[in-house]
Structure formats: C-alpha cells, structure tokens
C-alpha cells in the first residue's frame, strides 16, 4: 500500500510541484493545506503517513504547526520544506519535532531521499 | 498571380458576367442561405447567415457587380432538364473541389419557396482575416490555368476596370478574374 501524504504550503505552485514529485514516486497525496492551522486540522482528520511542511505560512507558521501536530501525535513524520537562508528556522523546526528537511529549489531526488529517511 | 505557375480558379456566373477567383481564396461553396437583414447596411449586403455556428455577412453578387437581378424564384416544376436537388436549409459543407459546377447544368439549390435561387461562395478577404459570403447565380467550373493564359487586360465592357485583375478564356468565352478585396472590402465598415 502506498504511503499517504499531507502537503502544506501557502503557494499553490509549491503544493503542485511537491504533489507531482510525490505522486510520480507512488505516494498518495491525500490532502493539502495552505496555512499552519489548516495543516493541524487536516492532520487530525487524515492521519497521513507523512507531512511536508513549509516553514513560512500565513495564519500559523509551519514551526508552530509542527509543535501542534507533534503534541497530538508524537510519532508524526514531518518533513520541513525550507528555503536557503532559513538555517535558524530549520533548527527550530527540528527541535520542535520535524524529522527532516529539504531545501528549495527542490530536486525530486532530494525530496524523495528525505522522504525515505523520514519514513525509515 | 504569378505568370509562371499554374493557378486554380473557380468560375462562376453573375448575371451576364463569367467571373473567376483564385480557388485558394474560396473557403466553401454553399447553397443560398436565407439571410437575416442588417438594418442600416446598404442594399448590396444581403445580411448575415449562419454557417454551422459562425455568422457570415453575405454580399449580393449581382448588386456588387451591377448586373440584373437573377430570375425570380422558379415555380416548383423543375427547370429545363436540371434535376431537382434536395435543399436542406443549412446544407452541409461542400468542398470547393466538388461543391458546384459539375457538368454544364448549374445547380439550383435553396430557394424552397424562398426568394432567389443561387449559390453562396465563402471568400477569404484581407489575406484570410475575414470571410464574406458572395452570392452568385451559379458555379460553373474549377479550372487550372497557366499564368500565361491570363491577360492583364482590364478594360472589359460591363464591369468596373478596378475590379478586374486579369482576363482569361474558357471554351471561347471570356471570363474576368475579380479583385475580390477591392470589390468587398469597401463594403465592410473597417
């Protein structure tokens, strides 16, 4: 059975691209979220095997969303999506409970590597 | 019209004139379709017709070329020898190659109790940017002629010389190759 994924990013562009990468590799993207609070809500509903989480989002940021999700489910497998220059934020996200991170610009191979690492 | 190459011409009759236009400018040959009048437009404009969902403005050939009005609609009895053709209102497309002018007898389509019999030729204007309908009495032939067979003569009785691009001959009869852009463009507003 393929793994289910929740894709969180405020840009449709990014969601589309991540979803395409994952779908082509056989993952099942079961939901998308545009804000941190949506991510938390959808995580609760969908219980996906994996979450990809943008760091900078309106409403509730990605890091706060990670904290919320980990509070609900300490085993949540969250992959942060960050941009260059977000060293400090990435560190914060990992401390908050994110399992790994990828850096934009995304190369499909790197995204899939990171996903494999997270899913162990 | 290059002097060397071979030109394909569509020959048609309007009143007493035998006219021709390059076949490549002919989009389609249709039976006469009943037009919807456009208020304010000059009499030379018959109106607009529906060609499979596209609206085409139609010009009356006989008025544009100052010919006599075609014969009034024929009574239901078939005209001398010509087979009655079925005339569905919006007729299917006909290829310019085969559409009209088979043999001698001009096809008389349309006019089921309507006004004037005849044929509508859809002509490309302005390098294909526009398409106008042009009513003719009948389509006569599709000819391939060498460019050298056409004369650049323009003065011909019964027609405005500025509308004539060349003159040719078919079976001993003179025909004029019309400058359709010059004839039709001034009819459109802009």
């Amino acid at each position, binding site marked *: 059975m393929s793994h289910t994924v929740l894709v969180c990013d405020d840009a*449709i562009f*990014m969601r589309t*691209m991540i979803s395409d990468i994952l779908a082509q590799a056989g993952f099942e993207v079961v939901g*998308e979220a545009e804000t941190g609070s949506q991510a938390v809500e959808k995580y609760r509903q969908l219980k996906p095997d994996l979450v990809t989480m943008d760091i900078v989002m*309106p409403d509730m940021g990605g890091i706060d969303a990670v904290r919320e999700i980990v509070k609900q489910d300490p085993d949540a497998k969250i992959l942060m999506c960050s941009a260059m220059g977000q*060293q400090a934020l990435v560190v914060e996200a*990992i401390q908050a409970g994110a399992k790994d991170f990828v850096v934009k610009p995304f190369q499909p191979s790197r995204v899939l590597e990171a996903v494999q690492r997270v899913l162990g | 019209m290059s002097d060397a190459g071979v030109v394909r011409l569509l020959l048609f009759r309007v009143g007493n004139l035998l006219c021709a236009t390059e076949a490549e400018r002919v989009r389609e040959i249709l039976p006469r379709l009943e037009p919807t009048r456009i208020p*304010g437009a000059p009499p030379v404009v018959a109106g607009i017709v529906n060609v499979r969902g596209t609206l085409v403005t139609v010009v009356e050939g006989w008025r544009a070329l100052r010919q006599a009005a075609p014969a009034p609609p024929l009574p239901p009895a078939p005209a001398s020898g010509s087979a009655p053709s079925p005339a569905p209102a919006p007729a299917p497309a006909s290829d310019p190659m085969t559409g009209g002018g088979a043999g001698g007898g001009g096809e008389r389509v349309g006019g089921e109790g309507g006004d004037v019999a005849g044929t509508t030729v859809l002509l490309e204007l302005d390098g294909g940017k526009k398409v106008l309908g042009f009513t003719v009495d009948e389509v006569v032939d599709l000819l391939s002629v060498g460019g050298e067979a056409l004369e650049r003569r323009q003065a011909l009785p019964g027609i405005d010389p500025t509308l004539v691009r060349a003159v040719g001959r078919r079976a001993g009869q003179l025909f004029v190759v019309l400058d359709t852009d010059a004839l039709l463009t001034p009819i459109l507003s802009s």
Partner: protein
Amino acid sequence: MDLSQYAELFLAESREHLSACNQLLLDWERAPANPAPVGGLFRAVHTVKGMAATMGYARVTDLAHRAENLLDLVRRGARPATDDLLQLLFRARDGLEHAVELSVAGREDEIDVAEVVADLDGAAAALAGVRSGARPTATPGPAPEVAGPITPGRLVQVTLRAEAPLKGGRAVLALKKARSLGEIHDVTPPEVAFEAEDFDGRFSFRIGGAAAPGDIERVVRSAGDVEHVTVGGEERRPAPEAPGPSGAGTPDARTRHIRVDLGRLDGLMDLIGELVTVRGRLNELAAERRDPAIDDVAIQVSRLSSELQAEIIQARMTPVWQVFDRFPRLVRDLARELGKQVAFRVEGKEIEVDRAILDELGDPLLHLLRNAVDHGIESPADRKRRGKKPEGEIVLTAVRERASVAISVRDDGRGIDRAKVLARAKREGIVDAHAEALTDDQLLRVLARPGFSTAEAVTSVSGRGVGIDVAMTRIRALGGSLDIRTEAGKGTTFVMRLPVTLAIVRALIAGVGPERYALPLTYVAETVEFGVQATTIVEGREAIVLRDRVVPLVHLRRLLGVAGDPPARWPIIVLEMGDRRSGIVVDGMLGQQEIVVKGFDAPRGTLPVFSGATIMGDGMPALILDAGGLV
C-alpha cells in the same frame, strides 16, 4: 523534470503575491508605526523566492533573497517605516515584478537590478549594524578537536557534503538522531553556531552509552547529506546512496486547485455556445414530433447543458480585486507626483465579473482614476481655502445590480464647471446656442467627444475630457454604459455599468414585422403594453408616463426601417441604465431565452444599435440590440 509546465502557475501566483506586497506597503505607509504589514511582506517575498528558486530563475531568487533579508531585519527590529525604506521596498517590489515577467518570458538576461540590489544590501547592512552582536557568528576553520576536560564517550567527527544546503539544520538533525543512542557532550562548534549561514558543515561531538560504532555511524548518516563520519578514530567510507522509493501505482484523484488558461475557458465557452444552439434546435424538433421519448431526452439535454453552462460561467467569474489591486499604488504614486493628498478606498473588491470583461476594465478605470487625482482633487492648499480637509478622498466601488455590475469612481474634489463646458460646447456647436444649462447626460456627451480635451480644456475646464472618450468607447463595446454626476465644489462620480458575463446572456426576443431581435435582460426593467392614445409628448419626444416617470419611446420599427404597420397595442420594453430610461416599442414579445453572443462583420452603414448577433433555435441569425445604444 520539465519545469516549463509550471511557468504559468509560477507567474500567476507571483503576480498575486507581488500585488499583495503593493497593498501591504501602502498599508504600512499609511500607518508607519504599525509593523503588522511587514510580516506579510516578508512572507510574500519569501514565497516568491522559493518558487523562483525552484523554477531556476536565479536573478529573481537573488533579488527576492536580498529583499527578504532586509525585511527580516526590519521585522525583527520592529522598526517603523521611513520614507526612504518604503521607497526602497516599492522599488524592490517593482523590480521583482519586472524580473518575474522577464524570466517567464525567457528574457532573464535583460533583468537589471544591480542598483536596487545594492541599495537593499546597503539598507540591510545599516540595519544589521544597529543590531550587531545580537546573533552568533560562525566559527570558520576545520572541525576542531575537542579540547578541555575529557568526557566519557566516543568522539564522533562528521563532515557534511560540500553541496548540502542548510548544513546547520543537517547537523542539528544528526545530533538529534545521535541522542537516541546516548547522551551528547562537547558539541563543537557550539550548537548555536549551526544557525549561522556560514557554518561549513564540519562538527564533532562525544556520545555516551554503549552503542557500537557501526550503529552510531548509521544513525548519523540517516540525517542525510553526510560525507564522512569518524567514530572513535575508526574512519568509514561513505555508504552508497539509499535508493528512492520504487515508483509503483498511480495516485488517486486528489482535490486541489488548478489554474486554467483563459483561452481554454473561451474554447469551452464556444463549445457550450454551440451546444446551447443545438439544444434549442432539439427542443423545437421535440415540440414538432410530439414523441414523449424524444421529449425526455430533450429535457435531459436541456438540464445538463444548463448546468454545464452555469459551471463554466462560474469558472470564468473573477473577483474585481484582481484588477483593482493595482490601483492603490497607482493613485498613491500619481498623488505624490502631483503634490496632492489623497485617501484612496476600494469597496466591493469581492464582486465577481466575467474574466473577459474584467480584462477590459483596467484601462477605462485607469483613465477615470487619473482624472480624479489630476483634475478632481484640489491641491491641499486649495482645499484648505475652501474649508475642506487637505486630504482628498477617492473611492472605487463595485456593486452588483441585477444582471449587471456598477463600478464607480467618486472623488470629493472641485467638480466640473458646467458653465465653462457649456460655453465651450456652444462655441464648438455641440449644443444649441440658446441652451442655458447642461444636464449630467449632456455634460457627459460633451466630455466624451473625441478631441474635446484640448490643452485649453485641461486648464479651463479642469480637463475632464481627458480619456473620457476612450473609457466611453471601451465600456460601450462591452455592452455597458457610463454615467456622470458632478456638483461644483463637492466632487464628481463616474459610474460604469457592465454586464456580468458576455458569453451567454438571457434575452428577450422581440418581434418587429417579420424580424426578430434579441434584447439582453441585463438592462430590461419591465415590459408593459400601451396603446397609441396613451402616449404624450414630452420635450418634443413621444413618451409614456409610467408610475409618474416619463419614459421616452423608441419605435424599433421606425428605427430599424421595417416596412408595414404596427399593431394597435404596443408591447413596450422598458430599459433602465442608471438614471436613464427608455421604452422600446416592438410588435410582439416572442419569449425569453439564453442566447450565445457572437460577433459579425458589420457592413458600413449598420445602425449603431447592435452589440452582436446570435443564432436562434431554428438556425437563423438574429441581431442583438445594444441597450446602451437605445437609451
């Protein structure tokens, strides 16, 4: 992977974010002490950066990165807006917009942002100077050996791949994973240095517990991007890459938004148009045949095509903010340039209209707004002298009215000097030399004359003619109307009314003699029936009085030159456009139906009262009357 398929999406979304930036900058400019917009700006620029990097647009990425840097500093320092900072950020935003457009057009090498980049960096350096010491700096050099007191545990030395991005994050991840095996001590450089941008990817730590060196290495490597790991002095070569997941199975349908090229929607709309026409034909056939089975199918086809049509029209509907959002910036820039003070407000941003109409609205609105700033709003000094607030007000409003949308531009400026316009109109012979006043309607007609806005008019008649003819032509072409209300000293309002959609409209079919005409319901207020004896003459025009209002009549039969005599009782279609009304006298009302609006090549001489044509159920064309040309 092929990125070109994402270019449209990138462009559309970048434009949205950059448009939002404009609004945020304006908000910030209005309330400089409130730093709330900065967070939004940072996010928007950040998002554009991420997208551009993914598309491989290096210059956009670079510019966005520098702007983001500056915004980050501003945000952390919660600094108020200064004029210089705002100007710089506006410039950066404009530069980004330009760079995005050029990149998508494949003209990336034409992007020249050196100056704004230098200014952004300069501003960032100045701000960072203020905050110096607030953040840790990295420790350059080779991974240091652990010195000092010996602590228990194995020494682990890690080197991350040179090309790995965000090495600090990777290092933190490695440490976190190692912690699952034992306690971590003596991290070198200290963890806080990982957060610095120039951390070079080499670090070491001691790990307690009983884990085997192989396990430690495996766990550290599982953080990813690890080049070398040395555990307890025993070096290991890097293991081969972990293979990616096997790509098996196709994803299920996912719910997500997509963006559709307008051309495709147009194509779809054309097809629906043909379907609607065929449906009409089918309905007529069904009515002729009286076969219940055909009837059933016809009814189903009708229902399905109506639903399809509604869906597609809905898909074409676009909120007006997509065009309105660029105006606040425009008004601001214009006001600054002209030394005016203007508070600009937008109301009804969420109102939706057909995308094809919206695309045409930009220019007319631009003309009206420019006029309002330039000629409507007085200078601050002037306003004070007249006892007004120095700051003028311009309001752009969209309101839904029946099947149309009214969009107005209102200013509280000086209004239009009717006497001057009248004098001029008389001189040019536009109005009767004995006319004593101009109604709003006449005023507009004078102003909308092409060429009325000569240099003299600009100075003496407050130049209201500028662009009105352009706006008027555009609006009329869309089947809309333009109205004006103006009061000297109080201000001017222009109202444009437009149909909500262009492609398929509901219309009344009117019969005049043997002919049929379609009249879109957009501006139809009601239909009434009158006899000839009930009409009166008002101001030399035949009219009826309807609930105490005079409605001038237009006899379609006469106007269109249809031969024959009218029936004794006339159906009258009352059209209403803003304050203007008109009664269209026809022979008969043949019903209502959806019509597909099509263009046709109008011959010269065609009466200017048609907005297009349509095809009726029987396949015959019918002309569509343009309410704007009749009222």
